[in-house]
């Protein structure tokens, strides 16, 4: 597979790494995700946007296996993983950073990332995992905090830890849930750089984000969700020009061009 250096213009020509067919998830009477289908291509950065409560996080839960879908199928790197548990999907190449950060509170920052490195890829020894964890801490700017316990971090650092830990599993597809929320513009720019470098190292990235400038700068393609359904799909400029999308955002707190 041609992983490295896929340009935005190459979208559509790479291999499909992640394919959702008609995914739905019902919570009692609420259809949080409804018949969602999309494909993600190798080396692509795909953004999923939508108002609060649109079902974005629930979709990510379906992708990573936290929930089983009420219906629909999911293929990861050509393999049907619909019925596979979370750990199997991780081993198959899916990494995830949570919107609400979930560090292991009694471990140090370095140990947190070591867990990802150690169990995310089969056949990793403890020594290798430690090394890789430290490399990732350097890459995400957390090296100075390696020895702190995770509960001592600020929220911002916690978000970086989420990303470092997910990257440690050496994913082929990385799912990021609002990891830039709450960042100052300079910091967000740094994070954008990090995501780009991750993609350049051959990882396809699917990210959820409310900050529109980040979506504009980063996304090769955008999927817009509203009330559990896919409302529109295309480049940033295509979807923001779509009247339906504008209508969906009207009256919501964040607005489209926050």
């Amino acid at each position, binding site marked *: 597979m041609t992983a490295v250096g896929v340009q935005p213009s190459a979208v559509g020509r790479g291999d499909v790494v992640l394919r959702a067919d008609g995914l739905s998830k019902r919570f009692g009477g609420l259809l949080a995700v409804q018949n969602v289908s999309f494909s993600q291509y190798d080396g692509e950065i795909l953004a999923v946007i939508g108002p609060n409560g649109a079902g974005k996080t629930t979709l990510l839960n379906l992708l*990573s*296996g*936290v929930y089983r879908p009420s219906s629909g199928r999911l293929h990861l790197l050509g393999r049907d993983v619909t019925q596979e*548990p*979370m*750990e199997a999907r*991780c*081993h198959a190449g899916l990494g*995830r950073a*949570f919107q609400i950060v*979930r560090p*292991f*509170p*009694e*471990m*140090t920052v*370095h*140990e947190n990332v*070591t*867990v*990802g490195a*150690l*169990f*995310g*890829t089969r056949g990793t020894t*403890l020594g290798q995992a*430690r*090394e890789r*964890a*430290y490399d990732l801490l350097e890459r995400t700017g957390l*090296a*100075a905090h*390696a*020895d702190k*316990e995770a509960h001592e971090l600020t929220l911002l650092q916690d978000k970086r830890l989420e990303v470092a*830990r*997910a990257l*440690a*599993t050496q994913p082929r597809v990385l799912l990021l849930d609002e990891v830039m929320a709450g960042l100052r513009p300079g910091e967000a720019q740094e994070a954008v750089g990090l995501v780009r470098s991750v993609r350049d190292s051959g990882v396809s990235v699917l990210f959820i984000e409310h900050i529109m400038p980040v979506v504009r700068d980063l996304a090769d393609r955008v999927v817009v969700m509203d009330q559990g359904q896919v409302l529109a799909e295309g480049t940033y400029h295509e979807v923001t020009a779509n009247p339906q999308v504008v209508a969906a955002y009207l009256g919501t707190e964040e607005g489209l061009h926050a």
Partner: protein
Amino acid sequence: MSRAMDGGRAVVRRPDVPLRALLPLGLFFLLALVFPFLPLGERSEYLLQIAFFTLVAGVLALSWDILARSGQVSLAHAAFYGLGAYGFALLGKVMPWFLAMPAAALIAGLISLILGAVTMRLSGMYFAIATLAFTEVVRTIIQNLPEATAGGANGLLVPALLGGNARAQYFLAFGILLFTALVSLAIRRSRLHHAFAAIRQGEETARVLGVSVVKYKLLAFFISSFLAALGGVLYAGKTFFINPLETFSLANSIAPLTTSIFGGLYTTLGPILGATVLRVAEEILHNSIKNGYLVVYGLVLMLSILWLPRGLMGLLRRGKHGGDV
């Protein structure tokens, strides 16, 4: 070497179990080793017996702690202790003790896999109550086995361990506690430690990061129950008479739990230290409190939760964190 100084990549190479932290543990075993040779006077026989049961309490507590490290706070420890005792009593009739002992432990370990598989998705109080119920079921089954083989409610004679030689029995118990401690340290240094800690601190997150939770939870159950059953063998071989009510008593689940919490959870030294203190205290108090000495365990448990969240180990290592042994 102070924490602040060894910045950078030193984090990567720092040993999981620093030698300095092993010192108190080594000291304990050294003391335990020479204990029978001390001039103990007339009461030496009695003191040796107390020391024997202290070692057994240590095995029980430390093995319980190993399971707790994976987030499984069990009230079924009495079941595996009891299965070890009964397994040894029954197998000891047909094979030499040194085979009956591991065989009994192996059976207990395998049965624990059944419990582990069924309670896999339970946590917190559901897990605790399910394990408590399991213990009662096992006890009732043992009690209702044909009396000719298992002795029923009345109990059962057990072949005395090592011909009843108190000193030899003591050293056997010493060896088994040492073995348990080595297993615990080996876990601390291996990937098991990371898997257990991750599962305990966030099971779903651990799974998303690729930890095979089913495998590691069952492994924790097997190791823990195997070791607890060895403790049960020691108990049965020492007292040479066992009955279901005492062997499977809730007290045998409460004691290791309280001991580990009091000593310091998720450490090797903590449960051993806790067992020593509580066991000696029990002997001292036994003359004034005959029935109901468990009152002490209840009180110690409450006070530990309220005021000693990291147990005795927390007192010893005040202000430091990480690298607990």
